[in-house]
């Protein structure tokens, strides 16, 4: 099997040990860093799809993501910022008062896998921290996660804080999490809602204006 094909398989299998080695080998035999990155991202896209249809579970997705990142670390020195063909910049976090990490981290990794420049602000992120991150990283998208009904008001607060800062028109807001519905997203003035990580990638691509992506709310 082609080394690139094997890299893809190792990412899907979540093989954190051998993925970096394979990437190193691919470099040695003369593949360029871009081709290798495509293989890694391609594997992660497949994982996202498997997870979306219910064939994989979150722990497996997370190990796949780690495998992908292990490979990325090897080729990173050879990729300059412009080479990475980033799709856009995302500031992502779980809202204030909410310590749920897994769903947000999953979306974060899948967005990275899809080529977004992701700034993960962690959990318990205040509206002001989201706003500062948008400013600092000139983010194209703010992605907020909330798993508690009681923390939903902070999503609204974050949007209000972005409005007051005059940043609301220059950034897209997407929201997700168990208590969040498309209607809720719409009512608080968000631009997009995604029920899961894979849809989040599709939605994010759509929000940064990539043509040819399916519209799914």
């Amino acid at each position, binding site marked *: 099997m082609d080394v690139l094909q094997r890299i893809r398989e190792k990412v899907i299998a979540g093989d954190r040990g051998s993925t970096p080695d394979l990437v190193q080998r691919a470099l040695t035999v003369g593949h360029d860093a871009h081709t290798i990155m495509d293989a890694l991202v391609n594997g992660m896209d497949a994982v996202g799809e498997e997870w979306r249809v219910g064939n994989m579970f979150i722990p497996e997705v997370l190990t796949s993501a780690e495998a992908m990142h292990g490979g990325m670390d090897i080729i990173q020195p050879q990729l300059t910022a412009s080479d990475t063909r980033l799709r856009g910049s995302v500031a992502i976090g779980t809202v204030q*008062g909410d310590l749920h990490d897994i769903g947000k981290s999953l979306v974060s990794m899948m967005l990275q896998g899809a080529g977004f420049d992701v700034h993960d602000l962690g959990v318990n992120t205040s*509206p002001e921290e989201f706003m500062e991150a948008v400013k600092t990283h000139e983010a194209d998208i703010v992605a907020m996660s909330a798993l508690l009904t009681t923390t939903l*008001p902070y*999503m*609204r607060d974050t949007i209000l*804080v972005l*409005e*007051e800062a005059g940043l609301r028109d220059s950034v897209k807001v997407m929201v997700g999490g168990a208590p969040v519905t498309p209607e809720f997203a719409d*009512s*608080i003035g968000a631009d997009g809602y995604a029920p899961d990580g894979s849809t989040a990638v599709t939605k994010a691509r759509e929000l940064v204006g990539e043509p040819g992506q399916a519209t799914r709310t």
Partner: protein
Amino acid sequence: MRQTLGIDTGGTYTDSVLLDPSSGEVQAKSKALTTPADLSVGIGLSIAGLEGLNPESIGLVSLSTTLATNAVVEGHGGLVALLLIGYDRSILELDPWDKRMPVETTSYIRGGHDVKGEEVCPLDIEAAREVILASRAQVEAFAVSGYFSVMNPDHERVARDLISELTDLPIVCGHQLSSKLNAVRRASTAVLNARLLPLIKRLLDAVKEVLREAGIGAPLMLVNGDGSLVSERAARKRPAETVLSGPAASAIGAQFLAGLDDAIVVDIGGTTTDIAILEDGQLWTNPSGARVGGWETHVSAADLRTIGLGGDSHVRVEHGHELRVGPQRAIPLCRLGAEYPAIVRDLEAAALAGMGRGGAHSTDYLVLAGPAADLPLSAAEQAILRALSAGPRLIWVLARSPDVGSASPDRLEALGAVRRAGLTPTDLLWTPSAGLGGSRAAARAGAQVVAKQLGISESELARRVFQHAIGRIAREIIDKLVEDSTGASLFPAPKAWDCLLQQALRPGDSLAIDCQLQVRMPIVAVGAPAPSLLPQVAERLGTKCIIPDHAEVGGAVGAAVGGVTHTVDVFVQPHVLGAGTATYLIHSPEAREEVRSFDRAVRRAEEIATHLARRAAYRSGAEGVSVHVSRRRLDLGTLSEVTIRAVASGKPRLATS
């Protein structure tokens, strides 16, 4: 019988009508030239021209004015110090906003609130005091905007009190102007109001004096940008709301005169052309605030497209060959020549002698306008004023004087001390039948100068200028219709698409495609130059053009038929204090209150909104006020947010006989 006197003080003409409010009949109309140096003169002349005017029978004087719009479009205004409380510099520096703000000083003061209206850090009163003391001598007004002041106006209020303690200057605070978020727009809106304060004061003082002399004692009201009326007292405090007053009044007047509820109203004045859309008899309004002359503001106004193009737009040649029309205005040469016949020979000599002398300023004169305010002027500025005391001078001739040299007259123009005259479409449209006099010789001589610069005939010059205006208006109408419905403008479109649009608007041979646009609504055109331009615009857009009776005084009619409305929004939001406990915050334009239960908060917010709207409508000079209250509720999990909107409306109070 009570009559309403409607007056429209435009950049060029001052129109007035006498209207019977019960029948809607226009009983008399009159038109005079606006006199920018002292507006009262033109208003007086316009009123004096009304046949059968009986001062005793006037029950209401209602005024619409393009003064504020023109000032913004042309960048005129008073000198302002801006105090920003709790603003983050980095937000303002994301775009060149800070640089663009037309203020004398911008100061960042520590303080400000958060999204819940909690103090982020105490107001730095000492710093504020220093800034006020340092800037008070250089400015005519202060503008104050605090971060999240719509959630808590305390810091703006403290700053306001401090300013009034240290100065007698007028103060504009952000929280009084808007209950919308966006600190940048709020600051722009405050600055805009502050800059307009001296201008509106001058206008209203002049009008009241003229009315007094004419024996008219009726209350005076102004038309706001959404077409509603306000008392002159209210307008003095929030002059920016009269931005777009002229075109809003024109749209309302056009609707009234044409008897149409769905139309595109195009009002061509001297300085600007304004496009408004009427649907079901209502003006389209922009929910996030009006954009005027490139300024994003929170001013609630009819959603108008304002183009810096009108009868008095400045026609000039740039880079030796590019014909430009507007957006700056100039006193038409025919009008300058009527007052100063000597300029005719001056221009004729220029046309004969020098091809393109003076470049883009080949026909530009400077003329003394008003008294220079008590402000320090540079030596060169003083030299300019001295030279002009003997009469208008060509700018490029003036620049050869050693004391003036390359000094710019921009500041003198901005201060209103001097005005610019030059070739305009009005000169090219000059006909004896236009009726308002003027020197034909001066208009022709100016046209010769510019035609020679371009190496074309005078008639070709006129044709190009009109084609330019017609094409521009047609494109702006199309773009407005597209942008209003989709949020996307045609103007940044790729070149190929632009060529196609061009072909549709003005068929030529360059493309092997014939395309045709068909706009569904008719165009109703008002304003003096409308008959010369709008029928051709309508033809290009595949629709018809209606120019109703009394169209030339459409704004004055709109002023006379308006009503009073005032809208107040009160915002109620939850405040999560900890696990399972929350209170509700009520944010009104007056204060922030905290209550325990949602239901009580909503009831209280409705009380506040109703009271404030009713009071504002009353202060705006309304009677028979009724208030309509609506709620917009947002469920946020177990908690809710609600915006209460109270709209108070009534009729203007008439003088009792």
